């Protein structure tokens, strides 16, 4: 290995190799009812989602409740089996890996949950919670306690507190315990499921800083699941917007925030209030009509057409493919274009 020498605190060069590659991922949940539990229909939760996350970068999946973003994350980790499609982590096929390989793979991909109150076992000390993945994978050796203390320091917790219990920590500190647990096995890929949305604003910035710093120093790849579009802009390199199980727009964060092309992306961005009175008074919100259609019977053609002000007959006839708008920026719409409200 001959690599050029780098200053110790420099950000490692981002390699172009994909850490996570998701292709045509589909998840249908059968609806069972009746005495014989016969299948009465299917919920199309994830309907053909594809994206690639380069090593060391953050891909954010955003969208409202029921859009399929959390299911996508669970499919990637193979916590639920996919109906079809492929997921590759560092070139390894996750969905078809044999049990022994899957176990090895699992140590390389970890998850941080949204609710730091529900995701930590209240009867285990903070130290035991962080040590748990090491024990499960048979890696808690003589240096175990020292590793746990090092992890505490790494996430900004006081190692003296390893013996304390979750209820003795604040929300922000608990989220740090969850992050330390996720780091214990030195993963390459972290799934962050709403990592700051349960935290007060004055606490969020510290956790976001920690996530940034961990990514920089360990070249971690993040799959971020979030609904808070302002917080997402802080972390994401790439963003995918989901609606009713499909990606409607995908691209570099700057492009997506500055020049959203899909009407749904535009509606979402317009709805987030900006904490600046003169700016907020000038902004115009796009109000969507109707409800999210049922995922058991999604609309024909474009799934957003029933609420779209640009919809034409073709939108009901054909499904718009996720096509290039510019090089990296893709949009699934027959009538993409700038938002008239801007």
């Amino acid at each position, binding site marked *: 290995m001959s690599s050029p020498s780098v200053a110790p605190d420099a950000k490692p060069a981002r390699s172009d190799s994909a850490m996570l590659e998701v292709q045509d991922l589909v998840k249908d949940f059968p609806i069972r009812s009746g005495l014989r539990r016969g299948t009465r229909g299917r919920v199309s939760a994830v309907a053909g989602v594809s994206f690639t996350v380069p090593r060391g970068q953050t891909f954010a999946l955003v969208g409202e409740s029921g859009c399929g973003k959390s299911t996508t994350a669970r499919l990637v980790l193979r916590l639920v089996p996919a109906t079809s499609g492929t997921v590759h982590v560092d070139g390894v096929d996750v969905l078809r890996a044999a049990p022994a390989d899957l176990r090895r793979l699992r140590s390389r991909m970890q998850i941080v949950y949204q609710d730091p109150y529900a995701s930590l076992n209240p009867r285990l000390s903070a130290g035991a919670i962080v040590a748990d993945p090491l024990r499960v994978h048979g890696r808690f050796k003589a240096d175990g306690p020292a590793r746990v203390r090092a992890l505490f320091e790494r996430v900004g917790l006081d190692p003296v507190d390893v013996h304390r219990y979750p209820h003795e920590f604040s929300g922000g500190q608990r989220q740090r315990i969850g992050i330390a647990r996720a780091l214990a096995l030195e993963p390459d890929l972290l799934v962050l499921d709403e990592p700051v949305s349960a935290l*007060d604003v004055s606490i969020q910035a510290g956790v976001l*800083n920690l996530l940034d710093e961990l990514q920089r120093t360990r070249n971690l790849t993040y799959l971020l699941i979030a609904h808070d*579009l*302002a917080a997402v802009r802080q972390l994401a390199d790439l963003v995918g917007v989901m609606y009713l199980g499909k990606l409607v727009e995908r691209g570099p964060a700057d492009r997506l925030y500055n020049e959203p092309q899909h009407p749904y992306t535009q509606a979402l961005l317009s709805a987030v*209030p*900006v*904490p600046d*009175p003169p700016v907020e008074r000038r902004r115009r919100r796009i109000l*969507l009509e109707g409800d999210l259609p049922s995922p058991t019977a999604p609309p024909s053609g474009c799934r957003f057409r029933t609420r779209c002000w640009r919809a034409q007959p073709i939108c009901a006839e054909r499904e718009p493919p996720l096509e290039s708008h510019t090089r990296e920026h893709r949009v699934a719409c027959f009538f993409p274009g700038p938002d008239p409200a801007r």
Partner: protein
Amino acid sequence: MSGGGAPLLTIEDLHVDFPTDDGPLHAVDGLSVDIHDNEVLGIVGESGSGKTVAALAILGLLPKRARIQGSVRWRGTELLGRPERDLEPLRGEEIAIVFQDALAALNPVMTVGRQIAEAIQVHHRIETAERARRVVALLDLVGIPDPTTRADQYPHEFSGGMRQRAMLAMALANDPALLIADEPTTALDVTLQAQVLDVLERIRDRTGTSILLITHDLGVVAGLAERVLVLYAGRAVEEAPVDELFAAPRHPYTLGLLASLPRLDRPPRQGPRFRIPGQPPSLVRRPAGCAFHPRCAFAALPTPCATERPDDVDVGPNHRAACHRVDALAGITPDDLAAERP
């Protein structure tokens, strides 16, 4: 402080304690504020700041174990200590309240119009035709298209956004002088949030109803409120007209909160984000002096910040801050602070 004439509602030195095993918990700790006719006052604070407890105290809705001191006056008449039968006519008629989980308030087996009509009838005996006209006018006010037809429909025939609007119409049934909206947008998806903000703007612009907007979301306050009160640990730390509060805050907590907010309309800064250090204080064991001093970058320690509780200081017309160091903050904007590396 602002507006002319006698205030609608006056809260003076309000204290609310709850007994706990560790001693009294000071949820509200000396809160004073006036609400005038035809204005929108935003009360902003993080969890545990006392904002919801204060709202419940106004309506006499706190549990019996709460110890309440101070004064809450409605059009000059004291409300604290009044028996239930005196408060009941006030609620819904003069003061209406909408909570976070508003949808649970709609009855699924009664038409929307009839539910609103009932809310009118509880307080006023008016003839049927007049009542029907009023129901349609209310649905129109909250932005429900085709209100005559809609009045005869059931809640399940309404979209989520229309149900939020109908619920607000019900709160307005008796043309209240004050509408208390407690976290009206929290836990809603952004597109639903947009609908609620739209209705609150309509109420502000088209009726004489004052709105007390209680929220943790400074973006919501920026667009709706005219005046803002910032709470920290049960106390008002700053009060100012909305533009001034955001542009030139004079309390270190307000300044820090604004500096640490992620913004949708701005790309992330390079390097670590500004953050307020530490955690919100325990309400059982409040820090001596100013409750914010352990987290404050401007504190003069130990005296006076850790020893004396700061009084309100008038720093401009209708602008007060409870801080010993208001002079040190003059001319510092949230952007200045955010640009500083922590």
